[in-house]
């Protein structure tokens, strides 16, 4: 309960700050020196926030769809041959640093939102894929037996049994992907993507801590909210399949 109140308060603070950043200036004033501006005004913060969220949202959606399809394919009888390889690739792929993936996408994509999107997409594939695989392959044997006994076709079994049962774990993967992407997207500003990283980098370049703090605060609050939101969805999905968590 206290958790929910705190989250609500955080959301209100975030919205108030994005709507009227100017009124928060006294709060950030102590962190500036030499009469520098306390609030980033180069680009409106709400517009940076929206483009940040859009970038992350598109990347997470795209990687979820692709990862789900791939995970379903490698768990079908015709795709089984790829399963061990797919497992190895996901565990090895996750050791690739997201920042390095971002930097490597630049030569191919040029500057702008493109490389950030590609890096977030590629990096986001792995947690969702790994979790979907775990969800689809980790089911008790009697579930499969029962589904077959009920006369479900493989397709029906996938849609009516396997995927709903795997949903909480899949959502967990999406949560991981979304939170990592939110943080990594800030680094996209070094390659000229329009994200909240712009505010932080402006702060770093002009030694203005107020900018660093407000950029970090906005991203941090959004991350906490998204984290909590996904956890709520996971709990609901788990309750639906009879797993009280």
């Amino acid at each position, binding site marked *: 309960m206290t958790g929910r109140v705190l989250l609500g308060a955080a959301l209100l603070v975030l919205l108030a700050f994005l709507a009227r950043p100017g009124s928060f200036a006294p709060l950030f004033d102590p*962190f500036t020196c030499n009469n520098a501006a306390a609030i980033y005004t180069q680009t409106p913060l709400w517009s940076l926030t929206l483009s940040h969220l859009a970038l992350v949202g598109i990347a997470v959606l795209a990687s979820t769809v692709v990862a789900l399809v791939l995970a379903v394919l490698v768990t079908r009888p015709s795709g089984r*041959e*790829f399963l*061990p*390889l797919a*497992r*190895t*690739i996901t*565990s*090895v792929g*996750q*050791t*690739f*640093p*997201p*920042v*390095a993936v971002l*930097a*490597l996408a*630049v*030569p*191919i994509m040029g500057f702008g939102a493109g490389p950030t999107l590609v890096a977030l997409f590629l990096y986001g594939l792995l947690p969702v894929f790994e979790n979907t695989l775990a969800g689809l392959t980790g089911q008790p044997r009697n579930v499969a037996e029962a589904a077959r006994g009920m006369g479900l076709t493989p397709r029906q079994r996938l849609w009516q049994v396997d995927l709903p049962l795997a949903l909480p774990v899949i959502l967990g993967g999406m949560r991981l992907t979304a*939170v990592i992407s*939110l*943080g990594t997207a*800030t*680094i996209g500003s*070094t*390659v000229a993507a329009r994200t*909240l*990283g712009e505010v*932080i*980098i402006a*702060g*770093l370049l002009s*030694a203005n*801590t107020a900018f*660093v*703090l407000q*950029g*970090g*605060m906005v*991203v*941090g609050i959004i*991350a*906490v909210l998204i*984290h909590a939101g996904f956890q709520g969805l996971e709990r609901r999905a788990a309750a639906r399949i009879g797993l009280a968590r």
Partner: protein
Amino acid sequence: MSLRLDRPGLLFAAVGLAGLALPLVQFKANRIVPGEGLSLPAALPMGLLMLLGLGAVLLAGCLRWSSALRLAAAAAGLAAVLLALGGAATSLTPPDDTLARVAPATGFWLLLLAFALMLTDALTRLRPALWLRVVLLVVAVTALAALLGSGLLDGVSVMREYAARQDMFLREAQAHLVLAFGSLGLALLVGLPLGVALYQARALRGPVLSVLNILQTIPSLALFGVMIPIFGWIAANVPGAAQAGVAGIGLFPALVALFLYSLLPVVSNTLTGLAGVNPATREAAIGLGLTRVQLLGWVLVPLALPVLLAAVRIVLVQNIGLAVIAGLIGGGGFGTFVFQGLNQTAMDLVLLGALPTIALALVAGIALDLAAEAANRRAPARQGA
């Protein structure tokens, strides 16, 4: 042996053949201008022969051979692609031309990917014993080091960038290692006792873990940025701090930021590891008359070792990657090259920073996976907990 089609092999062949069709290298008049793509036959005197050879290996991979044979073929293919890159660079660069650059292009990366996938697939199917995997890792790292040291790749753009700033590279490599391993060390030093304390004091678990959780959600860029003024202030106002090496710029803020990110995995895994020890084992140890300290040091911690190693893996791999961001705030490390390269649009310089980071993260990840597996085998008492 009946020759059947191998589906993963078809995938690798498709990727590899696309790589053969696309330009292997890019020839650039200097390090910043866009270059001209050259395919394998155009880039190497013996290129056509090599193209046919690589194509044959890829096509042969579509059929089901023994996995050991495939492993050897994939390793040979990888070596051939790397040598082709080095050879192309040497033969394309006019003598005495210090400005021209021969950079790896799409074809090279696709070929590398195809053979790396083939190698991984063969290894996964062979399922070698633990000791053999350790040997293979050592062999792979040694072979790569030997190749880099042999000078065969010296003509390649990335190596030219390296040659131009050898001293700086070694310094930044050292800084990167200090950042990644130093923050891990600090996190273990603080996180292990903290985890043990939380294990004893149930009431504190929730609050401490949620603080650490929130720390993790702060974007790395911001956390690094916030550390600068904090330590600048400490260095200026706390007597003796500046003499002790605390400073607002440089290694120190980056090290502390990484340390803060590392705390959550260490603390939560310590808790999980300790809580997962079989209660019967605990009781038996207490029955033997062990003190609390002995119980912890002789029984609980050794049994929790696999979970602790998992935390070390998470932290080390994560910190090797995050340490790149230190380059943006003057903390050193390979990130220095990445961001310098991005600023100058010199992609070879970006690669000089990104490739060692990836290699380091990969080796650390694989090595710790092996260590965790070894520890898991030695702690059978955990089972049934």
